[in-house]
């Protein structure tokens, strides 16, 4: 149970129940669809960039508690960041969760995602929104990414 409580801790459950920035941005200039074919999770990430700064970022879709909470946390953290800062965060989250070399610790709000590491089958749930936002930044038209 203790591992489970680590995974499904209050912050995660709070974001799952009340996802932040769960809306469409009608004048978004970047967007991407993310899919996890394994479980059918699907989300859309919208972002509005101006002069290299993320003015607004949001998401919509459905998924498990981990993927929804991770997406919600992500939108909170990325708002106001520069593209470079966002890229660095993406890289760090990805490496920290997949155990890839060069990954630092997850700090601040993202600390709650660290519990996912103990559940390898669920890492993709946590990284889906990050992959999706990464793809959205890279492209000026709507594109699709999958976790596979």
């Amino acid at each position, binding site marked *: 149970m203790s591992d*489970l409580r680590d995974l499904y801790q209050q912050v995660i459950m709070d974001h799952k129940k009340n996802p932040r920035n769960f809306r469409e941005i009608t004048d978004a200039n970047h967007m991407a669809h993310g899919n996890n074919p394994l479980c059918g999770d699907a989300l859309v990430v919208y972002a509005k960039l101006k002069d290299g700064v993320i003015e607004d970022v949001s998401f919509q879709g459905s998924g498990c508690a981990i993927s929804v909470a991770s997406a919600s946390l992500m939108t909170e953290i990325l708002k106001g960041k520069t593209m470079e800062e966002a890229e660095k965060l993406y890289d760090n989250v990805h490496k920290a969760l997949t155990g890839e070399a060069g990954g630092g610790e997850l700090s601040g709000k993202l600390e709650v995602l660290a519990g996912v590491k103990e559940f390898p*089958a669920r890492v993709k749930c946590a990284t889906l929104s990050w992959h999706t936002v990464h793809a959205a930044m890279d492209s000026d038209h709507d594109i699709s990414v999958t976790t596979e």
Partner: protein
Amino acid sequence: MTQTELKAVPFPETDFDIEAIRRDFPILNQEVNGNPLAYLDNAASSQKPVQVIEAVDAYYRLDNANVHRGVHRLSQRATDAYEGARDKVRGFLNAKLDKEIVFVRGATEAINLVAQSFVRPQIKPGDEILISHIEHHANIVPWQMVCEQTGAKLKVIPMTESGELDLSDFDSLLNERTKILAIGHVSNALGTINPIKEMIGQAKAKSIPVLVDGAQAVPHIAVDVQDLDCDFYVFSGHKMFAPTGIGALYGKQALLEAMPPWQGGGDMILSVSFSHTEYNTLPYKFEAGTPHIAGAVGLGAAIDYMQAIGIDKLAAYEHHLLEVATAKLEAIDGIRIIGTAKNKASVLSFMIEDVHPHDVGTIFDQQGVAIRAGHHCAQPVMEFYGIAATARASFAFYNTEQEIDALVNAIKTTQELFA
């Protein structure tokens, strides 16, 4: 059905010794995350009794060699073991002839073989292939590929809310353009047992060939292909207590004879020259290359094991487990059972309100309860219910009522965590 009603029909029968059966499956005796393992993912793959493990082990220790190729003793023993297993599969399906049994990797390979070798050469643009809404992807995609290759059309028998086939238009779906009816015997996502005997009868009345995907049926139902009168019947060994990588295609002799080979190579030829190759006779024409001999031996041992206990007895016990589990889940608030057909095999798909099946799977795993969470390779079924995935418990004859209680407790833990 209520729980009190269930108590009126006690099980196991006095001679169904569940403890002895569980001792045959060493893998069941372990802890997962500090809890006794409750393996309830049998529809994905079943566990193997020592009798199967030891048959494979003994084959490699004593008899291993290539088949049909050597004059030496081991090759003869390997060939005898392999062909002996074929005869067991024939008996298991009550086919007439050993040569009507083709060893394949599994149900998927068998369906692809029939799609490419039987249907593709004779189908024309505008012709139709009839499947149903509740098929596994293995009985959808190979037919879509034939349709793309030939311009034929895929037709789908619709389903009802309970997860049964809606056969109200079945008769008109079977028409002069229909080149094959490919239908699952038992649905892996919902457990529905389809009325295949009647369906085959209707198709045969119009001379339409029928393939039955028996992957989920053979672990639970005694199959008689002569009585069914289907043209092809396919299954995988690993879902019926045999090794992975082995399965069988049953095909009526006349149809198999007329079909071109599927893959080319050794074993499937009588003679080869650069100007002409003479294909081997049945079933070897369809068994190119060195087969999975040890797998076939293990499959034979699994058949022996099931028949020694009695398939009807296994099925009755599993049905009891299904009824107990269904009643217990129905009694829990916030549980929705997906698939409520009248005639079901021991598959129980469900949703816990407000909890994604993947979260369910992870939380259950922490309690030692192994279930499947996902779309079960049946995305059209998920789409029908407007969901992306379900949690699915599926029972084999080595499962127990205690394991159902573990399932119920895992549900309660999940609900508490998500409350």
